[in-house]
């Protein structure tokens, strides 16, 4: 820190000020370091933001383990697993986008960013399918919430398969300590948390895609070079963070107790 | 304890009171020592080292490790003493003895309902014997409340969907406050009552149904609780209904702009057919008790209401039995306003 002024001099001699250097910074390096630390501090707040939800989840999972296990089995492993893969893939493409920005490959950066957004959209699409399924089964908490309906009273033929599967699974269950009335009450807590957690996660992804749209445009316009690609890097950090949240949400929500 | 007749220290009416107060005075003394010590030092330095001329600067003293250690270690030790003492009192407060007498309390917006194992129910009033440990199991019908007995130095939250408990052993017979100390909505401050600590013999008498030997007014008072009148008519005037304290002989303004003087007839009409005259500023919420209250009980009730107005007996007309149940607008209502 002590030789910041000296740095400024060095750079002044080497070449003219980079157009992206803001007046209150001395060097691009200082500006970039500030941005990286700032972003990480922001992610710190995000950790605690989701942390509050995880705390609530933890408490109820301890209290209502059986209901959580029961409710989590009603989620589709296929969609959940697919989404995990999609999101991890999008992390890879995002990392590639940053790498291309670092190495000054403009078109490649744009392409990787677009691919990342597409994968993000796929993830959200799958979430829509899953949410729609919850609506259909009255698994959305609130006044229409119905736990039993999904398993015991399938409305139409198409549900028959699912129902028999459910029944088969039910046979293998260890004995539940909960009555149907208690299940109705406590599975609703699970779904309240499910929707809050996945909803906020999805919201973060939507914001992330929004940010990427802007950044893709900037990249396309050639605003970045190997000296200055901070926005791409910041968007990358954010996107990876969203991925990490999902890495935890997936086992917490989909895999409470699958072995029965 | 009082100064110039103003209470400045709560009564000590339970075994805990002395324990908690002793702790209090210990912490108070320690803290006073530090607060006064700091104040004296600061003021002394302020005078002693007052700047004498322009440009004067203080001595350059950077600090002293021994001092820093001294004044972090000593407070640490004192703090641990406070913690230990406080924790032991707390542990005692949280462990009801097995032989404790058991009472249930239910918090509800905005009243305390107590139930004795013997079957007696009370609202906003609790009779207990002195000299016996008593365990109160607390629950709530709606939101959070907190049952607080300042004279016993104990309180506990009422949590819907869960039971909590507190215990105490009252020592000095007398009447003490019951407060609700967890904010619970509009009439939180009206959710108050009285705990009546009786001598064990008196308590037995009360259990046997004080109403038997009790006066009519006392029986009325009991009915006033049993019929849940007291849920709406709080003395503080904050219930859903008006306060009935000192009401006899008063002129009340009615909803339709007229007014009425309160006598026994008015009271009776108000009870049996409350919709007939709605008091200004209130909703017509009160149920009609026509057919629900026997005559004897009605009399007892009115007697009780009268006893709430000790200074106004002369103003009231004598009860006129059934006749009084019909409205007497011409006689009683005096146009005003």
């Amino acid at each position, binding site marked *: 820190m002590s030789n910041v002024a000296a740095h400024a001099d060095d750079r002044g001699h080497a070449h003219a000020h980079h157009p992206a250097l803001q007046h209150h910074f001395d060097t691009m390096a200082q500006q970039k*370091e500030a941005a990286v*630390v700032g972003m990480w501090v922001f992610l*710190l707040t995000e*950790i605690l933001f989701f942390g509050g939800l995880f705390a609530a989840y933890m408490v109820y999972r301890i209290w209502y383990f059986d209901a959580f296990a029961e409710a989590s089995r009603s989620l589709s492993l296929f969609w959940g697993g697919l989404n995990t893969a999609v999101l991890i893939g999008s992390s890879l493409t995002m990392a590639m986008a940053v790498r291309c920005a670092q190495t000054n490959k403009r078109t490649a950066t744009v392409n990787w960013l677009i691919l990342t957004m597409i994968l993000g959209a796929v993830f959200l699409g799958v979430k829509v399918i899953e949410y729609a399924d919850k609506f259909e089964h009255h698994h959305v908490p609130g006044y229409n919430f119905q736990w039993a309906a999904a398993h015991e009273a399938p409305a139409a033929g198409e549900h028959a398969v699912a129902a028999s599967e459910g029944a088969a699974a039910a046979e293998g269950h260890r004995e539940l300590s909960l009555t149907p009335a208690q299940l109705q009450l406590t599975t609703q807590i699970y779904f309240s948390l499910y929707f809050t957690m996945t909803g906020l996660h999805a919201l973060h992804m939507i914001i992330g895609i929004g940010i990427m749209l802007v950044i893709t445009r900037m990249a396309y316009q050639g605003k970045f070079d190997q*000296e200055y690609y901070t926005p791409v890097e910041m968007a990358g950090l954010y996107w*990876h963070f969203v991925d990490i949240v999902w890495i*935890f949400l997936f086992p917490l929500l989909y895999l409470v107790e699958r*072995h029965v | 304890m009082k100064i110039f007749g103003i209470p400045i220290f709560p009564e000590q009416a339970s075994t805990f009171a002395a324990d908690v107060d002793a702790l209090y005075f210990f912490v108070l003394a320690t803290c006073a020592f530090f607060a006064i010590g700091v104040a004296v030092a600061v003021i002394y330095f302020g005078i002693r080292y007052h700047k004498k001329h322009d440009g004067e600067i203080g001595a350059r003293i950077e600090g002293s490790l021994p001092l820093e250690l001294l004044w972090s270690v000593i407070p640490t030790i004192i703090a641990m003493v406070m913690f230990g003492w406080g924790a032991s009192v707390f542990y005692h407060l949280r462990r009801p003895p097995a032989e404790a007498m058991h009472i249930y309390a239910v918090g509800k917006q905005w009243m305390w309902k107590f139930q004795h194992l013997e079957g007696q129910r009370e609202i906003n009033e609790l009779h207990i014997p002195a000299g016996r440990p008593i365990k109160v199991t607390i629950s709530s019908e709606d939101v959070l409340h907190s049952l607080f007995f300042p004279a016993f130095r104990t309180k506990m939250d009422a949590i819907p969907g869960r039971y909590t408990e507190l215990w105490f052993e009252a020592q000095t017979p007398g009447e003490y406050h019951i407060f609700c100390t967890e904010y619970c909505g509009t009439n939180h401050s009206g959710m108050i009552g009285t705990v009546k600590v009786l001598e064990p013999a008196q308590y037995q008498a009360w259990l046997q149904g004080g109403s038997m030997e009790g006066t009519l007014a006392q029986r009325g008072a009991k009915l006033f609780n049993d019929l849940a009148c007291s849920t709406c008519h709080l003395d503080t005037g904050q219930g859903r209904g008006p306060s009935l304290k000192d009401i006899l002989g008063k002129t009340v303004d009615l909803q339709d702009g007229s007014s009425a003087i309160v006598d026994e007839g008015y009271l009776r009409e108000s009870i049996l057919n409350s919709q007939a005259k709605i008091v200004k500023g209130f909703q017509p919420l009160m149920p009609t008790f026509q057919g629900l209250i026997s005559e004897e009980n009605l009399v007892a009730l009115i007697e009780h209401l009268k006893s709430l107005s000790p200074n106004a007996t002369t103003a009231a007309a004598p009860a006129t039995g059934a006749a009084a149940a019909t409205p007497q607008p011409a006689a009683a209502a005096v146009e005003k306003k």
Partner: protein
Amino acid sequence: MSGHVSPISLYITIFMALMVLTVATVGAAFVDLGQFNFLVAMIIAGFKATLVIWYFMHVKYASKLTKLTVATGIFFLAILLGLFLVDYGSKAFTQMPPFLS
């Protein structure tokens, strides 16, 4: 002055590792490990998260300050969850909501 550029092969490796670990979590969930199912799932997830943070998010090459920031986040998350458990962990044995017992 630009940051460290990682080889593409590293990214691919990390990606593959993450996929494998995802399959592993799902697999582990179908094995009855009793109490340990949850632990295994969390350890795998923690490992995955570490890979993402360390390589994709370049913390490996970042300043000490950035590393410290990440550690702070994890530390305070641990305080949050840990001290919640101090209450709920000791309460679970004594007091369940009555409508459940």
